[in-house]
C-alpha cells in the first residue's frame, strides 16, 4: 500500500473511533448502556440493523461468490421481507410492551428459568464463536494480500472498536454504524464504477453484463431441480430454500438473536422499531443484488485482462516453496496460455453498444476457454491440498480485494481496506454489545449478583463488553482453515442453533398449553437432532442444504414439545394452569 492509502485508511478508522466516543453520552445505567435510553429514530434503527447484519464477510465474500458461482446467492434473502412483517406483528410489540433488555427474559416469564438460561446460552455460544470468525475472516484475507501479521491484524480488526463499544455502549454502536454504512455504500459504488471504467475502450456496463450472463454468472433465480427431475435437497441456494429456509432463518435471526433484538429495542417507540424492520425487508434483497453484481462485473473485467491462477498470492508462494514447485510451474505456464487464448478471443468481442450480437459460436468458444481455465484452477486447488502447505484452498474471499489492490488507484485502495474494517466493526460492535447484555441480564444479574446498584450495573456491563471483545479476538487467533466461503461458515454456524431457538419462541407465542419442561427438553433433543443432521451431511451420508436446518430445528422443537406436553399431562404431572404473562393489560 502507498503512503496515501495508509493516510486514507488511518483517517477513516480514527474518524470512526473519535465519532463513536463523541456519541458515547447516555445515561449511566443498563437502559442507557444497552438500549440507548430507548430514544432512537426508525432510520437509525434501519441502519443499525443493516450494519449489524452486513459484516466485512458480506462485502468480501459476496462479490467473490458471484464471480465463482454466479448471483444465485441472493435467493438466500428471499424469505427476509416476509419475516420482517411477521416479526412486526408478533415478536416486536411483545418485547416492547414488556420493556425487555434481552429476548430471553421473555422465556422466563412464559416458561421458566431453565428454558431462558438454555436459550441464552445457545445464543452466547453461537454468537461468541461466529463473532470470532467475523474478526478472523477479514483479518486473514488482509494479512495474506498485504503481508500483514495475522495476529496484529486480528487485534486491529477486533480490538480498536472495543474503545468506543466499551465506552459508549449501544448508542455509540448505532451512530458509528450509520457513518460506517455511508462510507461503505459510497466506496462500493465507486468500486463498481471503477470496474466498468477499467474495461477496454468501447466496452461498457451492458457489455460486461452480457459477458457475465452468457457465462452463466447472472443466474439470479434457480429452481433447485435436478436435470433428471426431482428436487435437489443438497442445493444450497435456490428459490424454495431461499423462501422457506431463508424465512425461518430471518425470523430467528431478527426475532431471537440479541445482536438484532438489541438494535430495535433501542427505538423510541414500537412504531419506530417496526418501520426500521419493515424498511430493512424492502432494501435488503436489492442491496445484496447490487453487491453480488460487483462480483459479476469483476468476472467480466477478468475476461479482458489476465486473471490470476489463484487469488491468494501467499498460498501460491507457499506451494512454490514446496515439493510441488515444478508442478506449479507447469500449471502456471498452461494458465498463461489460457489467459493468452482468452485475450485473443476477446479481441473479437462483439460490443452491445455498437449494436453487435453475441453469437452462439462466440459464446461457445468463450465458454470452452473458461472451462479450461476453471479446470486449471481446480487442479491447483487440489495441489494445495496435496502439498500440505495448509491454508484455505478456496480463494473466493480474496477475489474482490485482489482486484482492488491490483487495479484501483492510490487512495481508493486505502478507502476499500477501510471499508473492510468498518463493515467488520459495525457487526462486531453490535455483537459485543448484545453478548454483554445477555451475559449481564440473563446470567450475572440472575445468578451472581441480583441486587446491584445502577452504577454497579453500568460498570459490570462495560467489563463484560471488554471481556467478550477479548474472547472474540482469542477465537480469531485460533480460527484456521474454516474452508469454503467464510460467509457460509458463519451462516452454517447460525443455522445449527437458530432453528431450535426459533422453535422455543414459536412455542411460547403460539402454543399456550405447552409448558417449561416440555419445551426445555424438546430444545435439547431438537439441538441434538440438528447437529446429527449437520454431521451426517458433512460426512456426505445425506444431502441437505444448511438453510433447511433452520426449518427442521424449529419444526422439531414444536413437534417434540407438543408430544411431551401430552405425555406429561396424561401422567398427571402438570396442572392445567398456564402461566401466561404475554396477556398484559394495555396501559
Amino acid at each position, binding site marked *: 500500500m502507498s503512503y496515501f492509502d495508509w493516510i486514507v485508511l488511518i483517517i477513516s478508522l480514527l474518524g470512526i473511533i473519535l465519532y463513536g466516543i463523541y456519541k458515547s453520552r447516555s445515561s449511566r445505567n443498563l437502559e442507557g448502556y444497552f438500549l440507548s435510553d430507548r430514544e432512537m429514530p426508525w432510520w437509525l434503527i434501519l441502519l443499525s440493523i443493516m450494519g449489524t447484519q452486513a459484516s466485512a464477510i458480506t462485502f468480501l465474500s459476496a462479490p467473490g461468490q458471484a464471480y465463482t458461482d454466479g448471483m444465485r446467492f441472493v435467493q438466500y434473502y428471499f424469505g427476509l421481507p*416476509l419475516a420482517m412483517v411477521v416479526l*412486526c406483528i408478533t415478536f416486536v*410489540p*411483545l418485547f416492547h410492551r414488556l420493556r425487555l433488555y434481552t429476548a430471553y427474559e421473555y422465556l422466563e416469564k412464559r416458561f421458566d428459568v431453565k428454558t431462558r438460561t438454555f436459550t441464552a446460552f445457545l445464543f452466547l455460544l453461537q454468537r461468541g464463536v461466529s463473532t470470532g470468525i467475523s474478526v478472523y475472516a477479514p483479518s486473514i484475507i488482509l494479512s495474506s494480500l498485504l503481508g500483514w501479521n495475522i495476529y496484529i491484524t486480528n487485534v486491529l480488526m477486533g480490538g480498536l472498536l472495543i474503545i468506543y463499544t466499551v465506552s459508549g455502549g449501544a448508542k455509540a454502536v448505532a451512530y458509528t454504524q450509520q457513518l460506517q454504512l455511508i462510507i461503505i455504500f459510497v466506496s462500493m459504488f465507486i468500486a463498481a464504477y471503477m470496474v466498468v471504467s477499467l474495461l477496454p475502450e468501447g466496452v461498457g456496463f451492458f457489455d460486461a453484463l452480457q459477458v457475465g*450472463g452468457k457465462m452463466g454468472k*447472472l443466474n439470479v*433465480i434457480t429452481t433447485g431441480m435436478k436435470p433428471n427431475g426431482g428436487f435437489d435437497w443438497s442445493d444450497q441456494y435456490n428459490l424454495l430454500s431461499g423462501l422457506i429456509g431463508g424465512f425461518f432463518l430471518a425470523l430467528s435471526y431478527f426475532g431471537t438473536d440479541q445482536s438484532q433484538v438489541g438494535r430495535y429495542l433501542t427505538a423510541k417507540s414500537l412504531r419506530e422499531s417496526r418501520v426500521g424492520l419493515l424498511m430493512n425487508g424492502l432494501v435488503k434483497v*436489492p442491496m445484496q443484488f447490487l453487491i453480488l453484481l460487483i462480483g459479476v462485473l469483476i468476472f467480466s473485467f477478468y475476461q479482458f485482462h489476465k486473471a490470476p491462477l489463484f487469488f491468494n498470492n501467499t498460498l501460491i508462494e507457499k506451494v512454490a516453496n514446496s515439493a510441488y514447485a515444478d508442478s506449479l510451474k507447469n500449471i502456471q505456464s498452461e494458465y498463461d496460455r489460457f489467459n493468452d487464448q482468452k485475450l485473443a478471443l476477446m479481441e473479437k468481442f462483439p460490443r452491445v453498444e455498437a449494436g453487435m450480437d453475441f453469437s452462439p459460436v462466440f459464446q461457445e468458444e468463450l465458454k470452452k476457454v473458461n472451462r479450461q481455465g476453471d479446470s486449471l484452477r481446480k487442479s491447483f486447488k487440489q495441489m494445495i491440498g496435496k502439498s500440505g502447505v495448509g491454508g484455505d484452498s478456496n480463494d473466493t474471499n480474496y477475489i474482490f480485494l485482489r482486484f482492488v489492490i491490483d487495479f484501483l488507484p492510490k487512495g481508493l485502495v486505502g478507502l476499500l481496506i477501510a471499508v473492510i474494517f468498518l463493515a467488520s466493526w459495525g457487526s462486531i460492535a453490535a455483537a459485543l454489545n448484545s453478548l454483554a447484555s445477555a451475559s449481564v441480564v440473563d446470567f450475572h444479574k440472575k445468578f451472581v449478583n441480583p441486587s446491584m446498584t445502577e452504577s454497579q450495573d453500568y460498570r459490570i456491563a462495560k467489563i463484560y463488553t471488554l471481556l467478550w471483545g477479548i474472547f472474540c479476538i482469542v477465537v480469531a487467533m485460533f480460527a484456521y482453515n474454516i474452508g469454503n466461503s467464510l460467509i457460509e461458515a458463519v451462516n452454517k454456524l447460525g443455522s445449527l442453533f437458530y432453528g431450535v431457538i426459533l422453535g422455543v419462541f414459536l412455542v411460547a407465542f403460539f402454543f399456550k398449553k405447552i409448558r417449561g419442561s416440555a419445551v426445555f427438553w424438546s430444545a435439547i433433543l431438537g439441538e441434538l437432532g440438528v447437529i446429527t443432521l449437520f454431521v451426517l451431511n458433512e460426512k456426505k451420508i445425506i444431502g441437505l442444504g444448511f438453510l433447511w436446518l433452520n426449518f427442521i430445528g424449529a419444526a422439531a422443537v414444536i413437534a417434540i414439545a407438543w408430544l411431551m406436553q401430552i405425555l406429561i399431562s396424561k401422567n398427571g404431572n402438570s396442572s392445567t394452569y398456564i402461566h401466561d404473562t404475554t396477556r398484559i393489560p394495555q396501559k
Partner: protein
Amino acid sequence: MYEEKERPPIFKKWSGWYALVIGFLVALIIFFVYFTKYFA
C-alpha cells in the same frame, strides 16, 4: 398470543403490509428471471 392494538405504519391493517411485501417480492423475482434470461 399477545394482541397489539397499535395500527401498523402507513396501512390500516397488516394485510396491507403482507400484500406490499409479497407483491414486492414477486416483482423482484419476475425482474430477476427477466434479467437472467435477457443476458443469458
